[in-house]
């Protein structure tokens, strides 16, 4: 694999924004001069179905066109997926893989549930943050905020700037403000081991 490509795998359920997050992040890093790729895995299109999304970020053009089997970061939008073998959250993880989980549980508990020894586990209650900040429990944007805190792929400033620009086309100022607050809160409220 080409050097300096960061591979991020998203696990969510239909409706939680895993696809949107994977593509949003890919587009957001362009302003930093990065190359990127964001894509979902399409299966049955129903609310609640397990969905995976993928983001690659690199300093060089990205040529790989396959899904991400050995991720650097695994982001889980829904904690019920942790126990699902079909979802395959820990699949292909190495000792360097960083897990970011939307949950009320502690990183130590999550480590047990995933059955992993290596890697790093961070947790954040992104659903609660989303509910409190913009009134809907859609955790994708706060999870990107949490990612900005642990990964060297995007700065909080660039993330917020990109969110404002992209959301302006679709959403009211109240929704934009709510999402910005949610991203900033998740960035700060992340619980690490």
């Amino acid at each position, binding site marked *: 694999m*080409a050097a300096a490509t960061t591979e991020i795998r998203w696990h969510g359920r239909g409706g939680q924004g895993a696809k949107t997050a994977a593509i949003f992040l*890919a587009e957001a890093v*362009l302003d930093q001069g990065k190359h*990127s790729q964001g894509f979902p895995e399409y299966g049955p299109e129903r609310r609640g179905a397990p969905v995976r999304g993928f983001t690659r970020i690199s300093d060089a053009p990205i*040529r*790989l*066109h396959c899904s991400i*089997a050995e991720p650097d970061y695994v982001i889980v939008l829904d904690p019920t997926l942790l126990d699902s073998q079909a979802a395959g959250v820990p699949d292909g993880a190495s000792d360097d893989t960083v897990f970011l989980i939307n949950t009320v549980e502690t990183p130590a508990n999550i480590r047990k549930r995933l059955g992993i020894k290596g890697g790093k586990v961070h947790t954040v209650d992104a659903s609660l943050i989303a509910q409190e900040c913009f009134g809907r429990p859609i955790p994708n944007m706060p999870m990107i905020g949490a990612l900005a805190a642990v990964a060297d792929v995007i700065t909080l400033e660039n993330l917020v700037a990109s969110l404002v620009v992209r959301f302006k086309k679709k959403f009211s100022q109240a929704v934009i403000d709510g999402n910005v607050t949610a991203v900033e809160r998740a960035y700060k409220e992340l619980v690490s081991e």
Partner: protein
Amino acid sequence: MKQIYVGLTGNEAVATAFKQARPHVAPAFPITPQTEMMHKFADFVADGVVDTEMILVESEHSAMSAAIGSAATGARTFTATSSAGFALMWEVVYIAASLRLPICMPVVNRALSGNINIHNDHSDAMGGRDAGWIQLWCENTQEAYDHALMCWRIAEHKDVRLPVMINYDGFIISHTAESLHILPDEDAWKFVGPKDLKAGYSLLDMDRPITVGPLDLTDYYFEHKVSQIEALKRAPKYIAEVYKEFGQLTGRHYSFFEEYRTDDADLVIVALGSTAGTAKDVIDAQREKGVKVGLLKIHMFRPFPAAELAKALSKAKVVGVMDKSASFGGWGGPLFNEIRSALYDLPARPKIHNWIYGLGGRDTDTKQIVSLIEQLQAIAKGREAETVNLLGVRL
């Protein structure tokens, strides 16, 4: 020229290029994974960004029929399709080429049914390879965008006047947001240019009335087919010209096929579409281990550049052709058959083997390509191997 760095899905990128080409007419019928391309284009029309007459038809057969009627008036016309939609427009696809109408059509490659599968392989377009269209294949969103601009110059060239099919992989390219460079609208328009409405004949020209598509029996049909064969023989010259001009404008240089690290390669993989990108990363890693392997990625499958391919592959010891479609009951996939045939007259031929892979969107990862290269190495060392093989499937 200053280009714009953006993140777009393959479908969005192609819709953007078509918007910049200012087509007059676009008949549309939805099918996954093409639908999003027409959605995006319809957005441009609804926003008043482009003044295209969209015709919402009741099937792909009607979409191509409407495109033919439109193009026969002289209007710049496109439609788009995938999989079963392409199969449904079958008979009219041939007519578009027979009438020498410069229609452009993305085929967002998807497996054919049954059972129902929405994901990528090349069985749809491969079935249409003898329909008389120019077929161009793209590796990523950048190439899809670039070809969606260049196709107009090729199709409408007065010495070509043939329909052009642009192939890009469903979901893998169509629904993947990638970083790419696009031209500013005015520069794209300067490159594509307006369609010469005075060129040729028009169904709507009352002063020069014509009959299009008359009964054409034993007396003339054969000669008309020969004129199509001749037109496709002439096309490469003009495709090369358009590639060259586009390269000078954008710095992105295309040719009938791209050769990646083939100069001293004993082993050469031949592929179409997005898998070529994955193969390049694998080849880089294998090269570091000292394996002399390269890739030949085909852009222009129709017309088929047989002589050029034979020359390019003549120095290899083993050629592994990857086919993302099966030829049921045939001997190997369509790409394999044509490559093997093209090399037949070489005084010393490389060994040529075929791998059928990725049917129905089966993920083609780096491990599969590593395994293919290992098999090529073994064959180079003299190991007996099947001519036609499978990759990434449970047996």
